[in-house]
Structures are given as C-alpha cells and as structure tokens.
C-alpha cells in the first residue's frame, strides 16, 4: 500500500510505524473540533479533558491569544485562544464555548495548556494511509504544525501536530498560514 508522507520528517517516521503495525486498532483516534466552520483534529492521547469556558485571570502584557490562566484543580494552566492563533476573527465567549485541556510535550518537558475552540465535534478513528500531506505553502510559511489532511464523509479534517503548535517558546503567528491554507482550498 502506498504510504503518504507529510512534509515533516519526524512525522513520516511515526506514520511508517503506524503503517507497519496491522493490529486490531485501525488507525489513531482523533478528537475533532470546529473553528470557523473548519474541522480540526488533535491526537486524542494528548487530550486531558474538555471543559466549559470559565473566565481566566489575564496575564499582564501577554500576547492577545493568551487568554490568561485558570485553576485546574490546583494547577495553574494557561489558556490559548486558537482562533486568535490562527488569525481568525475573535468571537464572544459563551457558556457553550469549549476549552480543550491538552498535554503538550515541549522542549522543557510536558506542560498542560488549554485551547479555546468553537465547539467539540467528534472522535474519529483515522487510518494514517488516508492522510494527505498538507499542501506546500511556500518557503515563507511553515506547516510543521499540520500533520496532514484527511477526508471524513466528504469533509476535510485538518490534523494538527499539537506539540509543535503550542510550543510556548515560539508560539507562531499563524494568521498568514491559515490565510494561505484557505486560499488553496
């Protein structure tokens, strides 16, 4: 079977592994969420919990996409607005706005962060073979944080490489990326 490779190097290794193992599990599980009409997916193993939006304590002089910190059972957890990360228009938070708490593995160990999304959608079992590489958006824009694109029931799901996306050391300004991504569709 043909293996589709992503543009990232370490990604390909992982997928090769997935491809080789033909066990009962037919692919990885992804939690998907909706943002501005698009469906995004994150590896479900990164997800710690899903909770409703509650007001966070703002951090002074933080970038606008950092909404603040919340108390998650005694741990201080920063909340990132993914919309603002992607340069999408910010929307008013409502009681149904959802925070997905993720465990992100970064350079200095793992950290816990929350991302604000419009709504949680579904959990899919996705075979890695069906994944298409993210389109090349040119040299100026890195697509490292996109693991690939997958079709589910004629919808496109964008799978995110969450460790790279939320690496605090260099939280990317993704507005440009998403604009280009939208243009290619």
């Amino acid at each position, binding site marked *: 079977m043909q293996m589709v490779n992503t543009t990232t190097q370490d990604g390909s290794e992982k997928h090769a592994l997935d491809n080789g193992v033909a066990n009962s599990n037919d692919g990885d599980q992804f939690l998907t969420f909706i943002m501005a009409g698009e469906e995004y997916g994150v590896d479900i193993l990164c997800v710690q919990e899903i909770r409703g939006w509650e007001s966070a*304590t703002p*951090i*002074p*002089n*933080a970038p606008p996409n950092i909404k603040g910190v919340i108390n998650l059972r005694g741990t201080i957890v920063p909340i990132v607005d993914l919309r603002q990360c992607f340069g999408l228009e910010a929307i008013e938070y409502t009681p149904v706005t959802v925070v997905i708490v993720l465990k992100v593995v970064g350079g200095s160990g793992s950290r816990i*962060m929350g991302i604000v999304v419009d709504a949680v959608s579904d959990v899919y079992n996705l075979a890695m073979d069906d994944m298409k590489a993210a389109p090349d958006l040119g040299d100026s824009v890195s697509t490292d944080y996109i693991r690939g694109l997958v079709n589910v029931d004629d919808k496109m799901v964008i799978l995110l490489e969450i460790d790279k996306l939320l690496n605090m050391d260099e939280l990317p300004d993704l507005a440009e990326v998403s604009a280009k991504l939208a243009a290619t569709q």
Partner: protein
Amino acid sequence: MSVDLSQFHQVFFEESFEGLDAMESALMELDPAAVDTETINTIFRAAHSIKGGSATFGFSIVAEFTHVLETLLDEIRSGTRSIRQEDIDLFLQSVDCLRDLLHALQQGQEPDKAGPNQLQAEFEEILASDPAATQTGEPPVTDAEALMEAATAQPDAPQTDGPWRIIFRPGRDVLRTGNEPLRMLRELAELGRISVTPLLDRLPSFSGLEPEGCFLGFEIIFRDRIDRDSIVEVFEWVADESELDIRLACEQSSSAAEESSSSAGAGWKINFRPGEDILRTGNEPLRIFRELADLGTLQVEADVTRMPDWSTINPESSYLGWRLQLPADVEREAIDEAFEWVVDDSDLVIEQNAGATDVADREDADVSEAPSADSSAVIVAQAAEAAAVVATPSVEPQEETAAQTPSAAATIPAARAAETTPAAAGPAKTESTSIRVGIDKVDTLINMVGELVITQSMLGQLGNEFEIDDLPKLLEGLSQLEQNTRELQESVMRIRMLPISFTFSRFPRMVRDLSRRLNKKIELKMLGEQTELDKTVMEKIGDPLVHLVRNAIDHGIETPEERLQSGKTESGTITLNAYHQGGNVVIEITDDGKGLNRERILQKAIDNGMLSSKDASQLSNEQVHDLIFQPGFSTAQEVSDVSGRGVGMDVVRRNIQELNGSVEINSTEGTGSRITIRLPLTLAILDGQLVRVGKETYIFPLVSIVESLQSEQKMINQVAGGCDVFQLRDEYVPIIRLFDIFCVEPEFHDLDESLLVVVECDGEKVGIVVDELLAQQQVVIKSLEQNYQRVEGISGATILGDGTVALILDIPGLVKLAGINHQLRSRVSSLASSHQELNQYA
C-alpha cells in the same frame, strides 16, 4: 562503585558530615590546658567511623588521611602525647580538608589531593617529633608515606620486600569489638596482590560455634613487594588481641592447608546448594547442619564457586553451597527430614559415598571453575567473609587447583550460576537531598491524618442520609475539616523546618579563626538556636549570615587596645539571636563594636559619586546606614581577605530579598550595630496583601510593603516628563501606575481616588497605584512557569478562596518593568529638597 554499596553512599556522606560537625564542635571545646577525655573520645569516635566508612566504600584517600589523624588522636587519647593549641588548629584544618574531600567525592569528582597530602605531612611531622609515641607496636611515621606510595602503585619504593607470608589469627572477640578481619584483607588487597587461605584448625565443633565469635585464621600470601611496616599497619588495631606472624615467604616452607585432605570415610555424601533466597525465607543452613550434626559426626565443606564478584555481593543472599558427609549409619529419612523445608528451593543430591577420593576430585573441580589464579584469591577471601558471617563452613579451596575438568556441572545447573550475579544497576546518583525529621513530628502528622479520616467518615455518613435538619451538623463537620486541614498543613510545613542551630553552628569556628587572625578578642553568644526555619530558607540564608558576621568581626569589633581606650571591656561580643515574630523569623546580629561611622560612609559615598556633598549633610541616619547596602560600597580602609571588597552588603540584601525577606541596620556610633533580618517561615507560603486594580486582583508580598495611603494629585510631580514622584512627608517617592504597566483598565484614573502602596525595593521606596486594598491573607505560591513561562513583574500565582487565580507581584521586576532608571531613583529618593534641585538631576 558497586551497586549494593552505592545505595549507602548518601547515608555515609550524611553521617560523615555529621561526624565532622561533631568533631569540629568538640575541637572547639577542647582546651589544651585541661583536656577532657570524653571530648577527645568524641573526636576520636567521629574520626574512626569516617575512616571505617570510607575504607568500606573504597574512598581510600579519605581513609588514609583519617588514619593519620586517628593515629595522633589515639596518642593523645592514651595520654602519650599532650595536645597543643597548634594541634587543635591542625585538626580543625583537617576537618575542613575532610569536608572538602567528602564534598568532592559526593559530587563524583576526583578530590584534590594537595590539601590532604600537605596536612598529612604536617601530622607526620608531629608524630615523628616524639618517638615515644610508637609504643604499642604502632607503625613509624614513614608508614603513611609508604602506604601512599603503595596505593599509588609504586611498590618499588626503598625498603620493600616480598613476597610475604602472613599468618593472621584474630582474637575470638575481634568481630565484637567492631574490627572486621575482612576489612583488613581488603586493605591488604589494596596494597598489592594477595591470596588468602583460611585456617580452620581452631574451628570448634558445631555446637560450640558462636555466631559472633571469630574462629578463623588466615594465611595470606602477599605477592608484591612492600615494606613490612605497611603490613603491620593494616593490622594495627587488632595486633594486641591477635596472633600475627609476618615473614618473607621464602623463609617459610609452604605448608599451606594441609588440613584440607580430611579423612572422609564411607557414608552419606550430600551436596547441598541452597537457593539464593534461603536466608530471606528464614531458613538458616546452619540450623540444618546442627540437626545433621545431632545425627552423627558431620563434615562440612563449603563450595564457593557461585560467589559473585566482590562488588555485586548481596549480604542477604546465600551464594554458598556445601558438601556434607555423614556416617553410613544415619537413616536416609532423617537426612531428608533435615532438608525438608528447603528442598524445593535448593539443589540437593544425597548419595551413598564409597570413599574420600571422589570428594576431593569434585572439590578440586569446583574450585577450578574460577577463571584465573587472581580471581580465585578473591573468591577465597569471599569465602572467608561468608565464613565469618555464617560461621559454619569449612573452607578449603586452594588456588593451585587450576586446570582440572569441571565435573560438578551435573549437580549444578548452569542457569543458576547466572542468577547468582545480580544485574548491575545504573550509576549512582551523586546528590539526593534528604531531610532528617524528628519522630515526634511524624507522630503528630499521623495523628492529624487520623483525625482527618475520622472527620471524613463523619461527613461521609452525613452525606449518605442527609436531611435538612442535619445542616448544623454538616457545618460543624466542615469547620472541623477546615481545622484538620489547617493543622495538617502546619505539621507538614513543620517537617521542612529545622532548628536554626544548623546554620549557627558554623559560627563559633569562624569567629574563633577570624578573631585570631585579626588579633581581636571576641566572644560569640548565640540565642534562640532552636528557632525553626524552612530548610530551603535556611540553606539560602547561610552565606548572607556569614557575610554579616564577618563584617561584624572585621569592621565592627575594635582591637583590644582600641576597646580599652574607649572604656570598653577588652573582649568584644557578637550576639546572634533568632526568634519568631508573627509569621516571620527574625535573626539579629548585634555587636558592641564601634558602630557605623556616618562621616566615613558619607565621604565614601561622595567619593564614589553616589551623593553630592550637599545632599550628604541632609541625609537621616537611617538613610546613611542604608547606603552600605548599595553595590560597590565598602568603608574598609584596605581590602583584607576577610571583607572589604565591596561586594558584600548589596549581595546580602539581594539574597535576603530573594527569600522575600528584609534586612535593616541600626547603629549607634561608638556602641555598636544591630542588623535585623526578617525572613518568611517558608517559601511555599507567603503573607500577601490583596489589592484590586480594575477587575483584577493582585497580591503584594506583605514584607515589601512599607505603608499604604491615600494618594493626592497635588502631591505628585512629574520629573522631566518621565517619572512621577510623590511627596511622602520629607521624601520623594517615584510612583508606578500598575494599570499602566499591566495594561488593565482601572476603576480610577484619577490619583485622588486611588490608593498608593509604598513598597521597598533595593532599599528604595516606590509607590504603586492601585484601586483598592482587599484582605491580607496567607497564599500558597504556585508556579506560572510550570505550564506557561516567566512573566515580567509577576513572581507566581496563587489560588484564592473562590477558586480563581490571582497573580503575585514581583516588586523588583515591576520596578524594572516600569523602566525607572535606578540612578535617577536613588537620587530622587535621597533628596529632600526643593523642585529646582530635583530638576537639576533630571
């Protein structure tokens, strides 16, 4: 290092450091004029256990050094030598030196040998100075050198000879007196290649064995060249109670191990190899042998082929096998019965034996499994250890039995051999910190937990069948829970608390050394040594305290002549006092010296360009005293190695501030100074002042707040368009608008409405504008960096009673963030004059 020993390294280091502390304080007490034997004994004991421990763990450099120390101490102890002040100094130096060595070893570094070697030479000089010292067969001084040489693999030193044949029969009580023959064998093995054969002729019958008695003798062939004294030295501690015969091997007809070919007639031959865990399962082979011995004359031979390498030996495992012989008239059932409990875990072969030759062959074969002659020597020594511990087997291996076909394979499954070698674990971690906690604290904690459990079950029961009438009960239960939680928190915190004497204990020595060096007479008083302080705080306060005490000695206390001239007693006094005050620990360092000299400080400040002479005259005493905390400030006329480089006081202040503490100085010229340090009890909990700015709540560390007051617009002036200053009585204080630098929307933009919190930062006052003061409460500090990153102006976060997060302000960070130029700030705040003068600086 080996796996099994390295796990004890930490304990060894801790105990050694404790021992060194004990040695030090005992040395401090020691008065050459009236020597207290008990004190000497204390020192000796400490040195001895460090020596023993370091030899056990293979830290030979420490062991050798301590050994020389011990030799001198022993002479003092036995009264053959009187102690002089110089000796005490030398001992103190060697305590330092040992401490350095141990530190280096603890860090896994190669220790610096120069220090110990030099001190060792000095000790040897002392030892050599009095030949009467070598009375009880103690080695001449040159031994230590020879030992050093031998240890560094230079056996070709003069006066050496070899090979040696040593017959060593330790006294029966040698184990009980804490002398381990094995350790001596190890020491010998460090000097050169040895082979050891146990001498078993004095072994009593089984029933006469005492587990703590030593009945073994050893025949040691030392194959390298070495001088005789080095060998004697190894045995010096047991020489009195042992038989020791040291000869050159050539002088002696080698009649080694003639007893080995014991007469073994026809009868039962039992090959018994217990499982490695046999001792742990509570089955003692010795007991079995006793049972067998009751049946008839029993002959036992130990099989040591399964002995692992020295480094991997596990004291709780049994590696030995035994070959037993019983007379033919013993019932087979009786033998089986004796082994009944262990037969499942062991390899057991019981057969009728025709004659003795078979056994001898087998035995030779077993021993020949040892890979080389060298390692067989080691194995023999291991057998000796096992023999000393278990006190049973007769061990008769001979290293000459080199190349015979191993026929024992039939009775010893090969797989078992692999099991006997424990897997090597990873390298030892160099530093793991631990804390010693009094048992009473742990007991209190357990009591608390007990109460918590009771409350929890009460609440649980209430919850199961709750009716609204039970509400008062519920509330009562909840308040009880709250109390339990608070008490639990306090007791857990108390576990981290150590008495401040841990820090204070280093000062007597320091004061003594420094006062001698500076020719001053100083008495040190310490009060409140039992005051408890968080371990982390304690570790960080040590260096600043040392600095302050050094300063007091160097700058504070005058020379005896000066003191007499100014009508004081000849000897000065430095008092260290620690006590609790509110949620703080206060440490005071008081001296009755000359105090701070206002003129000299001012002159220095003017020279350094910190002040103009005009301002200088207007400063209050407090402000002048505060100057010494400025960077680069030192009034010592000349830089000594004690103090005066001008890196002192500002570092002290910064360190203390990092601990959320504060330091202030009070001084009266001519009568002395007092430095007061205030520290929070713990770093995990902070006394905070909650303030509100707009909708946000922030927390000020309470210690940094000087005062809070209503601000008034008319009291505020702008300096050069940049910095706003507030006129606080006779001072000008720069102000920071929190809403400005944190970009939050405040309730009041108008300064007439808002409040001003005056905080102290680096000795400067700064006013911070907030909307409202809320409660004061203790807050638990949580890290922001754990999941996010460092935020400028914020030192951490905490969780308030309602579950929301509040940020804790970092005052120095805030000031930096506000971008107020330090130079400007210091000038502004030190000015108490008109606007015109202010403008001139801006």
